């Protein structure tokens, strides 16, 4: 839009000249010297006012100027719009009438003079047949104010008042007259400033009235009084109201002017020029031309009045006539007026567009834009030089730019970047129509872009010009050939300047680039990143023509690194961008970019560039080879033809073992591309695996170019030589030496080939590991390229290749992961000769065999941990080694018993001996052998074994204590015994009290699982209570070589227990705690290993103080008749002697009644009923002789013993050979033969 003449497109707002506010010299309005010379001066004699308030007013005036503000169709809040110019006291107006040219001979009659801007005046550029030009617009925009606003001050000094007032009046009248004589209708408005406050103004009323009267100014419209003594805001609003009032004046002024032009148009005759044209054609402006002029004028005046619809109508009218049959059609294409008319058409069209925009009719504007374009195209085709030349394209480009500029100036809120819309919806009237999509007003970016496209077409057309036209013309020749008119030069240079044969012409590239950048900025503002990228790509083509390589790099490199096209698979775009960038990179030797781009473009998915070498090693050919760069790229940023995947064969592996894995690298390069020879491949892992580096080794079997080639690479562990860390002393100390796995192979990859490297990866540390990235390194002479490919987690199954071109899918997801389990220990811990059952009270000896089944010698240590209840002490003895013991405790642990070095497949013996346990219990024994191999001291290995030791009681026993008749009873007549008590009662430990005899029957059962040898049985008296002495003795002697007791059998043993009170006087009952002791051993264990099991007995009463009745039975035999005082016949009918002994340990005299009941089973002799007196501490016996009537049966002698005194029946206690039930004692009558046998036996 800037290409149009200055002022031709300015937005018309009423022009206001303010005078008297500033004394500083201002730029005169009229600059043209010829006009200045003839100008009309309106001068005021009074000096400009100068005060603080005036400065405020001046500033406010300047702020009210709207020329710098954007046009806004919506800003209706403003009550006035002015273009404001401040001057001193002098206003120079252009002459109303042009002078006759000096060289013109005076005409006969008085010439009719016209405005110097009119085509009628010979001095005008338009003379004689021009239409209108910008000078006329300038006249109204810059020279002639609608209102001449003069500021004067009112003196408040009363002494000078009259003088001042008179000066004021004179001056105002002078200005008024001067303005009136100038011929212009500019309104004069006077503002009188007073330094008083508004309230005190009434005192000046008369003076002001006087001024008003003598100047004839209307106080409502043209004379204002402004008291300045008031707050600033109030002053401003007062000035604002003055301006508002003036605005009406200005409107009136432009209305008058508009009316005047319409009147002139209405005359219907073309005015005659001052002097008829004599030179050139004598053609004068036609009536239609005058109509164009008048309509244009009225339109401009309407625009001044802000009456956009009126202006639009007038412009349209003017435009129609201009392009109608009588004006533009009549102009020949060679005429300079032709281009002037086109310019006018453009200006009118632009002004129409502006009106439409300001009225918010964006779609109508685009339609109008298109219409003008099409109309001009059609017109140029018919009347001008056609549309197939650079001039037309230049205009088209300009026409697009104009639209973009207009849109930018109008600032539609719908098109602001923040509004998030790309185009403006059509106005309501048009929204129902079938619209061209382009007719929805798009943001300026689109228009700039269209302009750029037209410029490139302009270049194309310019380039197609024949060379003759591009030579600077020989002037004389040009006239004859008419070559000057061959091209459309409307607002663009001649063909020989447009695209000269030599020397610079129009810099199309720069133009295109500038437009594209403008467009890009607009698109970028609206986050249209892809479009912006497209524009960048386009602009880089221009930069390439301009050879501005650095700029290309600056624009394209960020885009190339991170473009959406690559991510989203727009390969053709990616490719185009890459080639463009590469071309620039070559020029500035950006080696990293060149190599990276070449690397990417090797992918055969891109289209093939014919004749390209497709050899990465040749990338930097032609560039200097010193300082070969190291280039790091990765697959995050670019596509490569290489694709790596890594597969572990197994999901799990154990430390110390190896796991087969495959690294497959697939090449997707062009089939005729050079094979890629890698320098090395580096596989990095996340987790516990070591980095693998495979180096190129051309000595290995070379790779065939088959589509799949599987290689095995053996790996060796080695310390990594860390190249990246410089030889810094401090660094090198702290640097960890990392072990890496090295392998070698031929690393040539042919196009389309899948190289598979099968690796046996030693697993070292347990944990999860994952192949994270594969880095391939290329190192031709000129550069080093490191390309990193991430191994990504994916759902797609990976393939496991076999050498025979078969492949199978691994079913696991994420086969690049492996779980390394801890190294399985091969140290074996064995418990030799573990017995089935261990018993309490035996010491347990465990023999541990530790076997080294590793491939190497191992240094081992042993931990023994015992859990359980009542852990006995134990000791651990390593054969030929350490011996350690541990005392009994709740939980015990023996740590780090050194086993020393165990040779491979050797073993070490450890004996663990437990002290005997007291009772049944359970131990958990854990044996841990921690060791490391001599070959690999870093890997600790742990083997452990747990044992469950269940210890049971081998025996259980039950007991019966049976009363027996003791043979001894102290005799009251035995002085020795009695005196002994009294004499040495305290000192002597010999018991002298009553003694009672018992039989202790123990039945013990073996709970062992195997036979046990009972070596000895014993009853021990652990303790006695109540001054008693107990002695026990075994009734039958133990067999000397022991008794074999089988599992779950019960044996019985009888013991004799005699308890004797220490003193005869002591008659209290007493108890004894006894223990049954079994000495035993396992039959298989050696003789000396005797175990003792002590079974405690419940507490027994061993003496009682109550009287007791004991029954004893004895059988008469042929040989004996010990108690046969009553028996006379030792005849075959057997006699039984039943002795009833009543013991009275008490100190009472007791009387018992005995009643023997008769029975069917036997006959008896003895007192049927008798009374027995028992003295204290004495006993008496009664004997019954029984003759059983039955044989081989139990008979029940029913004897009742009653304490006479207490009338209490005493229980008769059976002794040996008898038993009792609830009814009384039973006596066994043996059968005859048995009796005999028994008798024989006794």
């Amino acid at each position, binding site marked *: 839009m800037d290409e149009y003449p200055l002022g031709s497109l300015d937005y018309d707002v009423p022009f206001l000249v303010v005078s008297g506010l500033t004394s500083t010299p201002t730029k005169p309005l009229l600059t043209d010297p010829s006009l200045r010379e003839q100008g009309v001066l309106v001068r005021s004699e009074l000096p400009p006012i100068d005060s603080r308030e005036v400065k405020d007013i001046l500033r406010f005036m300047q702020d009210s100027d709207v020329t710098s503000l954007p046009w806004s169709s919506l800003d209706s809040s403003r009550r006035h719009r002015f273009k404001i110019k401040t001057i001193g006291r002098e206003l120079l107006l252009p002459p109303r009438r042009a002078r006759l040219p000096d060289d013109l001979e005076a005409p006969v009659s008085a010439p009719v003079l016209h405005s110097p801007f009119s085509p009628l005046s010979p001095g005008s550029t338009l003379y004689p047949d021009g239409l209108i030009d910008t000078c006329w617009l300038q006249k109204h925009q810059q020279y002639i104010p609608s209102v001449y606003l003069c500021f004067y001050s009112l003196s408040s000094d009363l002494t000078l008042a009259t003088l001042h007032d008179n000066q004021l009046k004179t001056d105002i009248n002078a200005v008024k007259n001067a303005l009136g004589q100038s011929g212009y209708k500019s309104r004069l408005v006077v503002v009188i400033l007073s330094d008083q406050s508004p309230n005190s103004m009434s005192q000046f009323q008369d003076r002001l009235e006087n001024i008003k009267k003598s100047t004839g100014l209307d106080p409502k419209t043209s004379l204002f009084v402004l008291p300045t003594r008031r707050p600033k805001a109030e002053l401003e609003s007062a000035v604002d109201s003055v301006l508002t009032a003036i605005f009406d004046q200005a409107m009136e002024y432009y209305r008058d002017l508009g009316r005047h032009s319409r009147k002139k148009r209405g005359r219907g005759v073309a005015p005659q020029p001052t002097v008829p044209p004599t030179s050139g054609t004598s053609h004068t402006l036609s009536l239609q031309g005058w109509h164009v002029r008048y309509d244009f004028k009225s339109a401009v005046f309407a625009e001044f009045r802000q009456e956009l619809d009126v202006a639009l109508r007038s412009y349209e009218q003017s435009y129609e006539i201009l392009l109608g049959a009588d004006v533009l059609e009549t102009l020949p294409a060679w005429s300079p007026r032709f281009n002037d008319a086109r310019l006018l058409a453009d200006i009118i069209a632009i002004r129409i567009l502006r009106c439409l925009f300001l009225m918010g009719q964006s779609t109508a504007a685009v339609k109008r834009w298109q219409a003008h374009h099409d109309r001009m195209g059609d017109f140029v*085709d018919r009347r001008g030089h056609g549309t197939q030349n650079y001039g037309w394209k230049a205009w088209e480009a300009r026409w697009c730019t104009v639209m973009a500029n207009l849109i930018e100036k109008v600032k539609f809120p719908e098109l602001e970047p923040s509004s998030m819309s*790309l185009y403006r919806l059509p106005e309501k009237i048009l929204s129902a129509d079938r619209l061209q999509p382009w007719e929805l007003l798009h943001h300026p970016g689109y228009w700039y872009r269209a302009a750029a496209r037209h410029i490139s077409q302009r270049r194309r057309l310019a380039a197609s010009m024949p060379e003759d036209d591009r030579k600077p013309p020989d002037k004389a020749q040009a006239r004859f050939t008419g070559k000057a008119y061959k091209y459309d030069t409307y607002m663009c240079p001649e063909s020989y300047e447009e695209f000269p044969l030599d020397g610079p012409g129009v810099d199309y590239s720069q133009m295109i680039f500038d437009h594209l950048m403008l467009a890009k900025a607009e698109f970028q503002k609206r986050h249209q990143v892809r479009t912006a990228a497209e524009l960048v790509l386009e602009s880089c083509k221009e930069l390439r023509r301009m050879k501005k390589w650095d700029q290309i790099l600056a624009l394209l490199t960020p885009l190339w690194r991170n473009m959406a096209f690559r991510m989203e698979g727009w390969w053709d775009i990616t490719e185009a961008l890459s080639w463009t960038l590469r071309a620039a990179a070559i020029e500035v030797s950006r080696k990293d970019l060149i190599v990276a781009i070449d690397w990417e473009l090797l992918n055969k998915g891109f289209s093939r560039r014919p004749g390209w070498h497709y050899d990465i090693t040749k990338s930097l050919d032609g560039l200097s080879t010193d300082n070969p760069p190291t280039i790091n790229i990765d*697959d995050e940023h670019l596509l490569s033809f290489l694709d790596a995947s890594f597969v572990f064969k197994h999901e799990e592996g154990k430390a110390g073992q190896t796991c087969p894995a495959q690294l497959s690298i697939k090449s997707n390069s062009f089939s005729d591309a050079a094979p890629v020879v890698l320098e090395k491949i580096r596989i990095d892992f996340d987790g516990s695996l070591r980095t693998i580096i495979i180096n190129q080794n051309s000595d290995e079997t070379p790779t065939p170019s088959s589509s799949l080639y599987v290689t095995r690479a053996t790996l060796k562990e080695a310390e990594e030589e860390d190249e990246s860390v410089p030889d810094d002393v401090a660094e090198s100390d702290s640097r960890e030496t990392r072990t890496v796995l090295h392998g070698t192979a031929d690393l040539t990859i042919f196009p389309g080939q899948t190289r598979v490297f099968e690796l046996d990866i030693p697993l070292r540390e347990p944990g999860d590991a994952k192949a994270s990235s594969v880095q391939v390194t290329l190192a031709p002479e000129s550069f080093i390229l490191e390309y990193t490919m991430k191994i990504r987690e994916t759902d797609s199954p990976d393939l496991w290749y076999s050498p025979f071109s078969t492949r199978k899918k691994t079913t696991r997801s994420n086969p690049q992961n492996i779980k390394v389990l801890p190294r399985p220990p091969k140290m074996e811990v064995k418990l030799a000769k573990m017995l089935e059952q261990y018993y309490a009270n035996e010491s347990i000896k465990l023999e541990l065999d530790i076997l080294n089944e590793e491939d190497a010698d191992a240094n081992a240590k042993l931990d023994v941990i015992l859990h359980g209840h009542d852990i006995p002490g134990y000791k651990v003895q390593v054969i030929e080694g350490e011996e350690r013991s541990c005392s009994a405790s709740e939980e015990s642990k023996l740590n780090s018993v050194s086993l020393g070095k165990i040779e491979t497949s050797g073993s070490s013996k450890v004996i663990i001996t437990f002290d005997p346990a007291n009772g049944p219990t359970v131990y958990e024994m854990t044996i841990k052998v921690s060791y490391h191999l001599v070959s690999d001291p870093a890997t600790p290995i742990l083997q452990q074994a747990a044992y469950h030791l269940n210890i049971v009681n081998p025996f259980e026993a039950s007991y019966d204590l049976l009363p027996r008749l003791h043979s001894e009873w102290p005799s009251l007549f035995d002085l020795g015994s009695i005196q002994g008590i009294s004499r040495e009662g305290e000192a002597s430990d010999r018991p002298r009290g009553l003694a009672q005899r018992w039989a202790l029957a123990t039945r013990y059962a073996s709970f062992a699982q195997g036979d046990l040898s009972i070596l000895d049985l014993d009853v021990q008296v652990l303790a006695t209570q109540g001054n008693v002495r107990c002695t026990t003795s075994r009734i039958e002697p133990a067999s000397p070589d022991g008794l074999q007791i089988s599992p779950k059998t019960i044996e019985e043993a009888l013991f004799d227990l005699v308890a004797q009170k220490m003193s005869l006087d002591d008659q209290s009952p007493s108890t004894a705690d006894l223990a049954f002791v079994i000495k035993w051993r396992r039959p298989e264990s050696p003789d000396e290993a005797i175990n003792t099991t002590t079974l405690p007995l419940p507490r027994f009463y061993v003496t009682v103080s109550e009287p007791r009745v004991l029954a004893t039975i004895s059988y008469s035999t042929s040989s004996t008749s010990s108690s046969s005082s009553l028996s006379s016949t030792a005849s075959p009918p057997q006699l039984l002697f039943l002795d009833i002994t009543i013991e009275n340990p008490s100190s009472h005299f007791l009387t018992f009644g005995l009643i023997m009941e008769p029975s069917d089973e036997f006959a008896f002799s003895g007192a049927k009923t008798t009374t027995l007196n028992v003295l204290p501490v004495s006993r008496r016996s009664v004997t019954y002789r029984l003759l059983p009537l039955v044989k081989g049966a139990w008979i029940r002698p029913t004897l009742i013993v009653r304490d006479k005194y207490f009338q209490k029946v005493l229980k008769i206690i059976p002794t040996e050979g008898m038993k009792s039930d609830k009814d009384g004692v039973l006596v066994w009558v043996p059968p005859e033969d048995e009796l005999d046998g028994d008798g024989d036996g006794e």
Partner: protein
Amino acid sequence: MAIAIPSIACLGVIGRNNNPLHITIFPSYDSSTHTLAPLRTPLQFSLLLSSTLDVFEFRTRHARGPNPTASSTTTGLVTGDFGLLHAVDDRLACYGFETNTGVKFIAVVDMRGRAGASTVLPPTSPTAATAGTAAAVGAATSGVGLRDTELKVVFRAMQTAYVRLLQNPFYDPEETGSVALALGARGPAAAAPGGGKRITSRRFAEEMRRIGEGWAPGVTVL
């Protein structure tokens, strides 16, 4: 007199991840030479289609925004019809449609792509197609407009074709649909440039061609 009428210059199917699935380019009628030729190069059409993605993103973001002002465009998000995405210049305009699975159909309309008086099919003899140059230029200017709804039939037909493609059990939409995903996850080579990740069905391509050639403003069935 021949009036240049709109025709389809390019049909594009773009996947969920903004990856191109299918592009068909149709020749436009060139009034100056009376020939049919694509208006732009395939690369330019690719750029054009990808630039519409900006608008799709833009609209989607805008629709989620607090204050949607453009009334006709927001309704598009319900039906999937985005209407006019943008006009590239005075000839080409892009219309868009997005399925609920995020697959986008884009029709690039050449507003003066076809000589109206001649038949829909390319004229057998170019010279016979139209009258004088001036008339053609004049006619082109006052070309028929277009309403957003007139493209609906195109998108419906494209969607039908696409659905038919999906019904083919041998077609794996994930394979084509997740290029960017694959690119992110698998390394780029899996998403082989220009390779098989696009729709390769010949039937689909023929269908696209039929739709593009058969459409003209006012056509209600495709």
